[in-house]
């Protein structure tokens, strides 16, 4: 036991004396949460738009005011001829132009039918789509208001209700993803690097020719990172609660338990990586390419798994991060208990045991 404690003490010296790993450990999580929370978002806010009002009557003015008043759009410019539409798009700031037909109000009252054109800059298709939807819904909303006064014979009124994230805040889906990525990065990459560093510097040779047992070396390497990763997880959850007002509907205890499970899973992957690589460089490359990319791309963090091609959907099943994201989303947003996520939890446990078993089998007690 004394040996083990001595070993852990040494590991903490390594971590706290290496500025680079300290930065990765504590700087990255905060920077990433902030980045994903504030900058990388698929909501739209204050999009600059222009109006081409050929009618200039009370109704169009009302619509323009309504749109400009919303937090999504800013009225930047009034356009007076067709040629100008093209030129404002080319300048690049204006993302959409709304064109009202001639005699807009008159046609509406006399013919019960009028038209408005929405032109969007689709160089960024996602944004264009969102702008389109938002503008359409504002127009529809206005239509409903004026329809109230006039009786329409047949009407279907869809009543939508968004549950678990009613305001459609994208930060709610990013926080679980970022947490997953960071725990994976810190746990797997840092442990694999710290084990391979001993190999590279030759200290592993001395450790092998000593009474310290292989499992003590591995546990000694893993323990400090469990501790630091838990701190990281706590920091991320606190940031998301207090800065992004993310709710934690489920039990904090369950969230903690699942996080520790995932951390151990990632650490066992890190050990596995260190058994197959002999230099820090290789360990880092394998961690980045072999873990980070799948975690970001295939876990459902950014791209929904359901819309992936079938082969990728199948591959996504072997990525622990996928299951962890399902678990924490369920706990934080839906507030479910273990009875609803026992399957995912079991998969993570099985994966962890599998990785540990291979690592122990592959761990070398000699140099070859």
């Amino acid at each position: 036991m004394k040996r083990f404690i001595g070993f852990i003490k040494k590991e903490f010296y390594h971590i706290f004396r290496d500025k680079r790993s300290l930065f990765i450990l504590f700087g990255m999580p905060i920077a990433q949460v902030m980045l994903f929370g504030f900058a990388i978002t698929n909501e739209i806010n204050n999009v600059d738009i222009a109006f081409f009002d050929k009618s200039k009557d009370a109704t169009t003015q009302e619509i323009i005011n309504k749109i400009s008043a919303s937090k999504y759009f800013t009225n930047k410019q009034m356009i007076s001829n067709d040629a100008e539409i093209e030129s404002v798009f080319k300048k690049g700031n204006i993302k959409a132009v709304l064109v009202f037909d001639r005699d807009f109000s008159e046609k509406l009252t006399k013919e019960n039918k009028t038209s408005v054109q929405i032109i969007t800059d689709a160089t960024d298709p996602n944004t264009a789509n969102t702008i389109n939807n938002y503008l359409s819904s504002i127009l529809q909303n206005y239509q409903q208001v004026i329809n109230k006064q006039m009786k329409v014979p047949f009407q279907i009124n869809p009543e939508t209700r968004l549950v678990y994230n009613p305001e459609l805040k994208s930060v709610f889906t990013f926080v679980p993803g970022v947490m997953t990525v960071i725990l994976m990065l810190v746990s797997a990459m840092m442990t694999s690097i710290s084990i391979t560093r001993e190999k590279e510097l030759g200290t592993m040779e001395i450790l092998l020719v000593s009474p310290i047992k292989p499992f003590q070396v591995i546990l000694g390497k893993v323990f400090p990172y469990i501790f630091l990763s838990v701190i990281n997880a706590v920091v991320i959850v606190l940031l998301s609660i207090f800065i992004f007002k993310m709710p934690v509907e489920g039990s904090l205890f369950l969230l903690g338990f699942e996080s520790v499970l995932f951390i151990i899973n990632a650490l066992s992957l890190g050990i596995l990586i260190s058994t197959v690589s002999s230099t820090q460089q290789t360990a880092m490359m394998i961690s980045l390419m072999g873990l980070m990319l799948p975690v970001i791309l295939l876990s459902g963090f950014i791209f929904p798994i359901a819309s992936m091609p079938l082969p990728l959907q199948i591959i996504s099943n072997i990525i622990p991060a996928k299951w962890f994201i399902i678990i924490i989303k369920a706990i934080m947003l839906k507030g479910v208990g273990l009875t609803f996520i026992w399957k995912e939890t079991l998969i993570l446990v099985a994966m962890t045991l599998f990785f540990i078993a291979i690592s122990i089998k592959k761990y070398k007690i000699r140099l070859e």
Partner: protein
Amino acid sequence: MSISVKNISKSFKTVNAVKDVSFEVKEGELFGLIGPDGAGKTTIFRILTTLLFADKGTATVAGFDVIEDYKEIRNNVGYMPGRFSLYQDLTVEENLTFFATIFGTTIEENYDLIKDIYVQIEPFKKRRAGQLSGGMKQKLALSCALIHKPKVLFLDEPTTGVDPVSRKEFWEMLKRLQQKGITILVSTPYMDEAALCDRIALIQDGKILQIDDPQEIVKHFPTTIYDIKADNIYKLLLALKEYKHSYSVYPFGEFVHYTDKRDAIDTKELTLFLKDKGLNNIIIQPTETTIEDTFMELAK
């Protein structure tokens, strides 16, 4: 026997690093493996410290088999690899404490064993190991290898890259450790250090050329060696190689070492021959055989 090696062979993908090597080291002996880089010294060390499996042959260290009883060996030996292998980001004191802890002991418990060495680096105990000089690094590494009072000490090229003064001190320390009953197996590419061992094995290309104590090895040299010097060493080398009676010629310090095919040389004749070749200030004198001469002869 403290170390016993029987017919050990080991090959890697492309090279046969060790070929059928056998030797024995008595308890309390200071035994040297002497040979150039790539001779297979490190491989032998790694087999004996249970880090590598031999392809063929058996070996025991402190009475334990290197394969079956590897755990006992790891408890009872001290190993100092050829490359400086301590934690560079830990201080001198932290390194020593760490190695004491993983061997289940404390610095205080075995302080008398490392005292002579450690007092020299103690003033720098708060300094990171990475910032020590070469000589001090070696002293720290030796202290760490000794901290658990090993029965057998393996030192793989401990003086490579160390200044001459520190080298001399280092060997004095080894002598003192030997008196405390520790068996020491040391390897070195420096022939002058060989003379300080009780017995040495000359090794080249994975094969042992000769095992004996240094005096005996020198004594068995077949002929007399001459130191020859002239104003132009390079020209001298070429001239001597052309000389009809010449057996071996190689540079040695400020002289050229020369052996003749005959039992005794004709100094006058040789001087004339060299003057003919345009050399001046010629000195020819018999000299004592060194281990390096023996090695050159055996490796021929």
